[in-house]
């Protein structure tokens, strides 16, 4: 058996196995009349490892044999194959975010007053980490609670130029019909879309804000 065929069988077997395979077991894959020596198998493995230099994969010897791995430098990109669809944000988060947008600057206590329930600190942390909300000061009352306000990123994400593009409370009463109309709007040209004024409830651009 020539070297190339030997390497080919070994490569095919290591990739198909889905587990590490030892040199002796690799040798057993060949028909008796064509079975290579163990040393030949080992030499082929070395050559295969050399072939994989500068490639997306690498040949590595672990306790139970040889296996082909994704090179560490590519694992970040490859990991995206398993990126899960995210869970939806809770109702509580959306209400909190809306209150910060409409009533800013606002403290957590004031949000709680309107919502009638305690605001989970995780919610505030989530919207801050997302870049939509930030602390812009403290209210000078006992406890100096943080004052929360929306950010430029918040406006960008929702395709708004200014907070004035949000519907007024009066318009909000008809938000269902508002939304129906909006779904027929042509997709806004870009994040800075100038027609946002006409469409105060425009759907945000599909793209996820950079993280």
């Amino acid at each position, binding site marked *: 058996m020539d070297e190339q065929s030997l390497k080919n069988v070994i490569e*095919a077997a290591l*990739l*198909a*196995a889905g587990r590490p395979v030892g040199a002796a077991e690799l040798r057993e894959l060949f028909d008796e009349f064509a079975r290579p020596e163990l040393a030949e198998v080992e030499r082929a493995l070395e050559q295969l490892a050399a072939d994989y230099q500068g490639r997306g994969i690498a040949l590595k010897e672990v306790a139970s044999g040889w*296996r*082909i*791995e*994704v090179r*560490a430098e590519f*694992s*970040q990109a490859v*990991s995206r194959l398993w*990126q*899960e669809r*995210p*869970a939806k944000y809770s109702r509580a988060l*959306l*209400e909190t*975010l*809306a*209150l910060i947008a*409409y*009533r*800013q*600057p606002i403290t957590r206590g004031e949000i709680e007053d*309107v*919502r*009638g329930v305690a605001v989970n600190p995780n919610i505030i942390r989530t919207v801050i980490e*997302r870049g939509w909300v930030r602390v*812009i*000061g403290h*209210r*000078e*009352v*006992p*406890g*100096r609670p943080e*004052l929360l*306000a*929306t950010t430029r990123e918040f406006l960008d*994400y*929702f395709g708004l130029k*200014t907070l*004035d593009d*949000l519907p*007024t*409370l*009066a318009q*909000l*009463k008809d*938000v*269902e019909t*508002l*939304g129906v109309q909006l779904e027929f709007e042509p997709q806004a040209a870009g994040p800075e879309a100038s027609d946002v004024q006409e469409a105060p*409830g*425009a*759907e*945000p651009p599909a793209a996820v*804000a950079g*993280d």
Partner: protein
Amino acid sequence: MNATVPPAELGPQQHEMPFAIVDGEPVTEPPKDLYIPPQALKVFLEAFEGPLDLLLYLIRRQNLDVLDIPIAEITRQYLEYIDLMRDLELELAGEYLLMAAMLAEIKSRMLLPRPASDGAEEDDPRAELVRRLQEYERFKRAAEDIDHLPRLERDVFPGKAELVERHVAPLLPDVTLKEMLLAFKDVIQRAAMFAHHHVQRERLSVRQRMSEILLHLHGGELIDFARLFRVEEGRMGVTVTFVAVLELLREGLLDIVQADTFAPLHVRAAAPRPTPAANDDAAPAAT
């Protein structure tokens, strides 16, 4: 297979019996006295996928074409196999008996003399059977073809490489503006805030400007009051800023400082007020 005396109950049909491969070779010419073990026969008969399959076998075995079935002969052979299945106590699906009835009906219709006048138009009584046999045979072939396709697990082995380190950065949920607005509408309705019509008239740009000014003052330094205004924003922008400053003052978030009469006005974030020594009191009282 050993040749022995045939059991009496199988005697009459024996020359019809097919049998399994022996040492990989299909046996086509059985000696007259060859004994077929009932198990082998059973396996053979059980292998039929129903009456159409059995009929096709009978037709093909004689190199006959589906389009020209000698219906009397095929019916006779079919019934013999049915009897054999019964004798071997095979589970006989009702479809086999239904087919037997159909064959008998075709046979009787073919025996009847056709009227000379409209004979040309009359359908061959076998037509429906032929259609079904052909249709079944197509899919029988198709099943074999599919079985011959190279398939995973048997013929095709996909390559896999180990991903030692998986970093899964979770994607963040998307939110539509509409979702947020609906949530807001609910919370406002719950809080009965629609009643306050001054809220309805409130310009959100004032709120936004309030946030911007506060952010500007976040460092704690004094800022020239005039620098809060931008001429290029026009009268509307100036008004918004002015209302925002007044609102910040009203909410106690901003101090205006004037060193002297007629000296420039300065603004800064409201200074911390003296708080009671016991900070515990500052926590909102829970009830």
